[in-house]
């Protein structure tokens, strides 16, 4: 049966739309398995020793702040534990995933600090200017702890965007799956090329996206908010890059193979008809 000219044009147009939806689906899937996945984020911080890094960084930052105050590191004794840091980071990840701001209440640190300062002042010959200055100092120390956990106030600008991104990823997955199923049912009847055409096209576009965006970013030196957070971001970007590369190559190979078998089948069936 000869296809009508309109159907041929339609098959190309719908083929392109299918390809486009396929690219959306492929990209959304990669995002869903990486930055859109809460468990991936937990594994990321755990496997890269992020808890220990932040625990050390808080200590480091507090010592830096102490440098011009006259206090010694003695006042940092037992201010906070590693388990407390782990719990607070996990709360931050959970809240970020849900699009909520994390507000840590660290009165325990303030009380312990107050007690340490009183012990220190009793032993040393130093005094304090006034009670307000002491409170300022304690607040600053607690802020150091909170800021390292919650990535300073800059995190508040990207948390809503991250939440929106996750929503878009989920919507894209659902819309693309439904669209692909509908287009498959319709295209089956009118397409004049192999499904491999679309699969190969998706593979090539995925590889192109990797080249056009990822290869242009200086990933190994990316700096966003803090160096510790940036290290995690670099790992995520490298991971997404590997997923894009793997997905693109597999789709290309599968697409070429599909086109190859499509071409064989027709010749084979034709030879059967002749007999």
């Amino acid at each position, binding site marked *: 049966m000869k296809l009508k000219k309109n159907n041929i044009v339609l098959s190309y147009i719908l083929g392109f739309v299918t390809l486009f939806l396929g690219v959306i689906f492929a990209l959304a899937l990669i995002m869903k398995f990486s930055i859109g996945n809460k468990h991936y984020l937990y594994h990321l911080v755990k496997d890269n020793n992020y808890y220990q890094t932040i625990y050390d960084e808080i200590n480091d930052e507090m010592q830096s702040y102490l440098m011009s105050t006259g206090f010694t590191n003695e006042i940092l004794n037992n201010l906070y534990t590693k388990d407390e840091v782990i719990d607070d980071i996990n709360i931050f990840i959970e809240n970020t995933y849900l699009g909520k701001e994390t507000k840590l209440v660290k009165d325990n640190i303030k009380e312990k600090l107050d007690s340490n300062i009183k012990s220190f002042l009793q032993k040393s010959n130093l005094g304090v200017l006034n009670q307000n200055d002491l409170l300022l100092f304690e607040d600053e120390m607690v802020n150091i702890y909170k800021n390292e956990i919650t990535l300073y106030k800059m995190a508040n600008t990207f948390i809503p965007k991250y939440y929106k991104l996750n929503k878009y990823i989920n919507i894209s997955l659902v819309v693309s799956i439904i669209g692909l199923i509908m287009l498959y049912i319709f295209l089956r009847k009118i397409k004049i090329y192999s499904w491999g055409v679309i699969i190969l096209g998706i593979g090539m576009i995925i590889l192109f996206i990797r080249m056009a965006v990822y290869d242009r970013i200086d990933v190994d030196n990316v700096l966003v908010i803090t160096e510790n957070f940036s290290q995690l971001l670099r790992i995520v970007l490298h991971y997404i890059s590997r997923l894009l590369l793997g997905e693109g190559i597999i789709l290309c190979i599968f697409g070429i193979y599909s*086109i190859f078998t499509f071409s064989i089948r027709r010749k084979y069936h034709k030879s059967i008809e002749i007999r």
Partner: protein
Amino acid sequence: MIKNVNKKKFASNLAISFFFAAIFVLCYYFLLEDKIMPYVSLINTTAVRGEDIEIIAKYNIEAKRLIDYPSYGSKYATLEIPSINLTLPVYHGDNKKILRLGVGHYTGSYFPGENGSILYAAHNNAGLFHDLDKIKVGDIITIKATYGTFKYQMKEYKIVKETDLSAFPIQHDKELLMMYTCWPIDKGIAGHKKERYVVYAEKIGDEIEKE
């Protein structure tokens, strides 16, 4: 199996696939490239290439401006104050990590030789700006940058509140070196220091490195 392949069909299917991909690539370049590239450029601009690498800054003598600025976090000069026997490295930036290493250069101020205000900060600990209050009017301060040597003479000092930004005027037509640290320095008082000791010095000479 390979003999049964319809080569024409195989080639035409491949061509259709490349055609689809090419349309997508064109759409990307015409519709999305301009929207995505500013973000990529911004990420690359803020990329930090190591903290202790000394980047050779380039200076334009006629324009009295740096052409290449040192990376944030890199050491680009040495500060010498012979009257208090002080020699310290100067880093571009003034975050807490930098201030533990030496003198921090506030990124919103000019660089030596640019004919504007230069703002340096350091902690008041021994080995840093502990003796800043011992510099006297007339003392010479030398900044040996990778692109030249600049000499300044102390004019005055002030003790100001930490929130008093008027004490750090960013001038665009006069080279003024301002160095500050927390105050009081080691006077038996512990805690958050709410004042700053600021030294002001004016430029008296320079020697630019020729390329």
